[in-house]
């Protein structure tokens, strides 16, 4: 089965990894410190994220740094959908607030 971006971000640890390296490039060791899991488990997540092209590796001396690849997200237009849903939920509540305000005559 081909790995896709949605499969990659379905896992909460991988979403957390993306969140961290979106802020700055990190080495696997530095990343592992953020998680209550083994260095091997983090490496496996990084391998999946790399296969999906969500992250890119870059060699800097002895260290390998993982960078977030924003281009991968541009291809996934639906990635913004949950963000839209969050606002949809807020606006539905706002509709109720406004509708109640109409009933109160000042």
């Amino acid at each position: 089965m081909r790995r896709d971006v949605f499969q990659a971000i379905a896992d909460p640890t991988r979403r957390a990894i993306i969140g961290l390296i979106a802020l700055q490039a990190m080495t696997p060791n530095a990343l592992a410190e953020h998680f209550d899991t083994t260095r091997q488990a983090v490496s496996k997540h990084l391998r999946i994220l790399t296969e999906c092209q969500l992250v890119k590796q870059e060699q800097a001396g002895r260290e390998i740094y993982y960078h977030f690849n924003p281009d991968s997200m541009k291809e996934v237009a639906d990635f913004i959908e949950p963000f839209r849903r969050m606002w949809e939920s807020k606006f539905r509540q706002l509709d109720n607030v406004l509708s109640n305000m109409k009933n109160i005559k000042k």
Partner: protein
Amino acid sequence: MTTNHKTRVIKNLQEKSILVSRVLNAPLENVWRAYTESEFLDQWWGPAPWRAETKSLDFKPGGYWLYAMVGPEGERHWARMNYISIKAKDYFDIEDAFCDEAGNMNTSLPVSRGRMSFNETSDGVLVEFTMSYATEEDVLKLIEMGFEQGITICLEQLQALLDQNKI
């Protein structure tokens, strides 16, 4: 009253901005109050199951809104919205940041600058919220955080359907 107005979200990575827009069926006066008075903000600003709880709100240029996002388990994330400039019933410019309970800003998380604008149209009041960030990564970080909340909302809705024996 229900509306079928669509919430639109447009991200622009080149300009490092996100635009959220929606049409609301209410007088401009009421929409403006719902956006600027804590009594109303507390009722809608937190996306369910989260809710916003105001500690203080001083709506004037240089003033700010200090509030907590309260989660379903009672967990609190403090945030403040700084009011930069205001043109009544037209727009107000803000700075959105994470902070502690005393309002001290946390600079390690993305700070966004934004404009809330209000326009009367034949359909209702068009509200637009443009958020601008310093870097492309900040935009993606915010989408990622929205993603987490979006997931929570999806699960809540699923649970509600399950509770009502609709699935």
